[in-house]
């Protein structure tokens, strides 16, 4: 390049830049700039008309000042004047100023657009390009309005110069991204697609960006691009490195275009045309083969360009997810990169493998690299690479390697960078829950998490461990024992105290038999931590204490003493004081029966998506990390990605707004309705778990229904807005159900309306409901009573439909009411001889229903018994010769008839299986009860 072409002699500008560079301080710089601004202002305002050169120089100085980070509020008009200069460099500086400093001054926009219009119609390619660059750089709506019609014409016109076509394509892309509604492709579509065939590689390179963007938005209209892209790609891939002349980059033919072609193909499913597909697979194989060839140059540019294509090809292979052979080859290639000396390649290989791990074809192949990845987590010197390794471990985790991966992640946590600890904690918590075979491992893992990284264990994580312990009776004793031991540590994290307080308050009785963890020992241990804790934790501990009074009457005096002390009953914190006063009063006036009801064990939480998973999704954004996170994508978008957690938190804090009586009331209705003790009222709300209002579906939820086969009370449904509690009682063939609708938000529900429908035409159930008030205030709860009469045996349950408006949006929820045939059981006690006699009487094949199934919960004896009793039958002891088996008897009461029913459940602990046999005088009853009960174990 000749030296003359550099600077075009704006000496004044060079001097000014030197001056600025010589400034010793920020103040001096500002002083110099202000002096210059004053000078330029006076020149612009002066009487003497400035010549083009001076105008250009001053506009350029202003631009420089702006780029230094200072505000510029004048000079726009002078820049616009430069646009219509007939000197190229003046025009160019004018456009540059406008591109960098445009504002929405409408008068100015009109003038700018006029100048652009002139240049576009000048037929001078250099001017046209300048004008197009300016439109692309500004990309405002006003410009789209003025030029979106004209540019496609320029793009496809036969006589347009190549360089202008290139600018026009990308200019149009920018306008389309900013104002898609203004760019109408319609008639141009096919001619734009055919730019993929253009002889000029530069035109193809520019046009393909436009085509890719348009294809991703309107795939059908652009689908002809697939075969064109494949043949173009095929020509490049098979060309010798010198064929493409200047489009070959460090011996790699057209790397940018190749990547873009592969990217375009990712907007579509695999080509349907066999020939096209064959050609494409051939290309992909060639690209994979080339990766194994010795490099043609030692330059990093060569390997980068080559590998850029390789990674894009792998992305396409993963996108198709249909060619096992290619997927496994891709995985092997990435496996080689995992140990490459280039950090960049290790990083990208880890990242790319993350997506491979979610394909069924390559999941196993990815797993073979576990040791390398664990090693990367331990030894990589760059935190962003370690982060990728952690992501990959998370993605490749399954039941077979969960214990190893969780252990490695836990040990990494001890030294992990602060920036990624919280995310690591969430991941460990999710994996531990997801792949827990025995829940004692889960409890151990979470408690370890709290021990190792307590500060990073967010509320969601410790809420979740409590939810799970409450829902899984097989782990409660172990959890109590383990937290008790963990609390022995002299310095334990406050989160440990929270979990410990909650679990011992619920299940401390399970370990109270051991004198080393007697009630008083437990209490003293908890209370020794009390004074070191924050207010919310203390509040939680106070609730644990009142639960202790119920669990262990012998601790009553000690605990009352504590509650009565000034530091509690006169505590300056209103919440603590209130709890102390109320609990003290409650413990002294309530009878043991009342106390037992009020402080009953927590009912199970509704099973739903883990709140920590939701939190991780939120943290990582849509589409992150792995499979389950993928399906979070849509939900995230449905939610509008908004901060719904905030809403729920407000609702929750409203719910616990203290008024002396409200708290106790909340306590009384705690078991069936709010499902929370006062301590939990504000804490155990599963803040992130449900999708927001928009995602409330009208689909019927079966899970909730099945949970109520063996119990009558609990939470039937819960989302961000509404909680429905249920309490029911049955006698003979009659039932009464109380539904409690709780508004969890602080906003009222209007047009609240519920209907119970029963679709079967014949009269089987007689269901009567009372209508509820159409207005449910924020934080309030309304009750509805439903009377049910069973006329004859039935299978389908009545449907409950709830409609209301929340903040203008109509919510529609349909649920199955948990009315099942077994609710009308009357237990029948009988001796062994009677049982076997009746069993034999019911020996016709249709009278018997049998199921053999795998245990999906623990096989704990007490739990099984509780469930069988919950079914409504009598549990007969000493009847079955095998003491491991259970037999039950009962009579189902319907208006039409009574159906006697016998049941036998044979657990096989070794195989983790059950055999369930039902015999009754009516085949439909045997079958239905068998079906319902088989879902309970």
């Amino acid at each position: 390049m000749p030296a003359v072409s550099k600077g075009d002699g704006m000496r004044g500008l060079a001097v000014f830049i030197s001056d600025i560079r010589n400034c010793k301080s920020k103040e001096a710089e500002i002083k110099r700039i202000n002096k210059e601004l004053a000078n330029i202002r006076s020149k612009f305002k002066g009487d003497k008309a400035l010549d083009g050169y001076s105008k250009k120089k001053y506009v350029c100085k202003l631009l420089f000042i702006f780029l230094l980070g200072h505000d510029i509020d004048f000079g726009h008009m002078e820049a616009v004047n430069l646009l219509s200069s007939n000197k190229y460099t003046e025009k160019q500086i004018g456009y540059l100023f406008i591109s960098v400093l445009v504002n929405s001054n409408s008068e100015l926009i009109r003038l700018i657009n006029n100048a652009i219009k002139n240049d576009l119609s000048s037929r001078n390619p250099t001017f046209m390009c300048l004008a197009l660059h300016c439109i692309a750089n500004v990309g405002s709506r006003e410009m789209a309005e003025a030029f979106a019609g004209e540019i496609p014409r320029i793009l496809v016109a036969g006589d347009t110069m190549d360089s202008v076509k290139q600018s026009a394509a990308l200019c149009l892309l920018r306008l389309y991204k900013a104002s898609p509604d203004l760019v109408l492709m319609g008639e141009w579509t096919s001619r734009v697609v055919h730019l993929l065939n253009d002889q000029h590689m530069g035109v193809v390179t520019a046009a393909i960006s436009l085509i890719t963007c348009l294809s991703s938005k309107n795939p059908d209209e652009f689908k002809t691009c697939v075969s064109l892209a494949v043949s173009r790609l095929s020509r490049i891939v098979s060309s010798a490195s010198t064929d493409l002349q200047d489009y070959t980059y460090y011996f790699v033919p057209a790397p940018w275009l190749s990547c873009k072609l592969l990217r375009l193909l990712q907007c579509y499913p695999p080509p349907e045309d066999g020939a096209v597909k064959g050609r494409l697979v051939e290309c992909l194989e060639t690209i994979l083969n080339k990766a194994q060839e010795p490099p043609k140059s030692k330059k990093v540019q060569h390997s980068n360009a080559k590998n850029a294509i390789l990674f894009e090809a792998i992305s396409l292979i993963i996108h198709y997810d249909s060619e096992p052979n290619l997927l496994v080859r891709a995985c092997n290639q990435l496996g080689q990169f995992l140990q490459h000396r280039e950090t960049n390649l290790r990083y990208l290989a880890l990242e790319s493998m993350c997506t491979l791990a979610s394909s069924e074809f390559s999941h196993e192949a990815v797993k073979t690299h576990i040791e390398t990845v664990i090693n990367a987590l331990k030894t990589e010197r760059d935190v962003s690479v370690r982060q990728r390794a952690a992501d990959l471990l998370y993605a490749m985790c399954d039941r077979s390697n969960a214990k190893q991966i969780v252990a490695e992640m836990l040990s990494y946590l001890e030294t992990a960078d602060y920036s990624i600890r919280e995310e690591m904690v969430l991941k460990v918590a999710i994996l531990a829950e997801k792949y827990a075979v025995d829940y004692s491992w889960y409890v151990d893992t979470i408690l370890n998490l709290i021990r190792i990284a307590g500060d990073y264990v967010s509320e969601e994580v410790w809420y979740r461990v409590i939810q799970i312990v409450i829902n899984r009776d097989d782990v409660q004793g172990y959890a109590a024992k383990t937290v008790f031991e963990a609390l022995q540590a002299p310095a334990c994290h406050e989160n440990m105290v929270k979990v410990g307080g909650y679990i011992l308050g619920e299940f401390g009785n399970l370990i109270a038999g051991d004198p080393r963890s007697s009630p008083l020992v437990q209490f003293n241990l908890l209370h020794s931590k009390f004074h070191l804790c924050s207010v919310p934790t203390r509040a939680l501990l106070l609730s644990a204490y009142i639960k202790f009074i119920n669990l262990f009457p012998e601790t009553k005096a000690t605990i009352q003493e504590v509650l009565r002390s000034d530091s509690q009953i006169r505590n300056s914190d209103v919440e603590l004081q209130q709890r102390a006063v109320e609990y003290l009063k409650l413990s002294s006036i309530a009878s043991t029966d009342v106390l037992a009801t009020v402080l009953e064990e927590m009912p199970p939480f509704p099973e739903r998506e883990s709140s920590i998973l939701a939190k991780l999704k939120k943290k990582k954004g849509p589409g992150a990390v792995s499979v389950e996170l993928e399906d979070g994508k849509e939900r995230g978008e449905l939610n509008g990605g908004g901060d719904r957690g905030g809403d729920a938190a407000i609702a929750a804090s409203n719910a616990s707004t203290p008024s002396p009586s409200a708290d106790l009331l909340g306590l009384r209705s705690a078991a069936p309705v709010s499902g929370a003790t006062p301590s939990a009222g504000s804490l155990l709300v599963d803040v992130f778990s449900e999708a927001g209002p928009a995602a409330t579906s009208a689909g019927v939820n079966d899970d909730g229904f099945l949970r109520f086969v063996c119990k009558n009370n609990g939470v039937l449904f819960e989302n961000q807005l509404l909680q429905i509690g249920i309490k029911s009682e049955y006698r003979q063939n009659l039932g009464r159900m109380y539904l409690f609708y709780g508004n969890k938000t602080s906003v009222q529900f209007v047009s609240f309306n519920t209907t119970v429908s029963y679709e079967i035409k014949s009269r089987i159930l007689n269901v009567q409901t009372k209508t509820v008030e159409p207005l449910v205030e924020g934080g309030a709860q309304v009750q509805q009573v439903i009377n049910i009469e069973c006329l004859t045996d039935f299978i389908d349950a009545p449907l409950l439909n709830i409609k209301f408006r929340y903040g203008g949006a109509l919510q529609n929820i349909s649920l199955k009411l948990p009315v099942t045939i077994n609710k009308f059981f009357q237990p029948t006690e009988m001796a062994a001889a009677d049982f076997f006699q009746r069993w034999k009487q019911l020996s016709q094949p249709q009278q018997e229903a049998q199921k053999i199934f795998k245990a999906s919960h623990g096989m704990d004896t007490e739990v099984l018994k509780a469930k069988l009793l919950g079914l409504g039958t009598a549990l007969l002891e000493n009847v079955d010769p095998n003491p491991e088996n259970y037999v039950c008897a009962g009579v189902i009461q319907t208006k039409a008839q009574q159906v006697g029913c016998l049941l036998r459940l044979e657990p096989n602990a070794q195989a983790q299986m059950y055999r369930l046999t039902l015999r009754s005088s009516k085949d439909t009853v045997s079958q239905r009860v068998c079906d319902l009960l088989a879902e309970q174990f």
Partner: protein
Amino acid sequence: MQFMLLFSRQGKLRLQKWYVPLSDKERKKISRDLVQTILARKPKMCSFLEWRDLKIVYKRYASLYFCCAVEDQDNELITLEIIHRYVELLDKYFGSVCELDIIFNFEKAYFILDEFLLGGEAQETSKKNVLKAIEQADLLQEVRLHTDP
């Protein structure tokens, strides 16, 4: 690509090109954050990092850092080579480019970039073609043009 930044080891911004609409305030905040993040990284570290919901690709050439922000589906390695090709273009144009060339001829640096990348996408990847376009423009420099060709 969403934006490209050039800055010195002292953290001084030498060139900024934004391909998405952002307010002046946001631009300043982003530049400040990123310059700080990247200057804090050690030499042998990987050239890519996740930053907000973007991928940052950066490389240091002598005293200058070149940094691009691309979207999730964009290719990191090819972006790295976009940077390199731009450096090559500057080098060829200025003849062994150094930071001072870019400071004193900042407008040229912008013009070259516009010929190479437009709207955040590669417009012309051939080094010859880009330089030819710039050369032609330079030849027009002092030639008077007729408003009506």
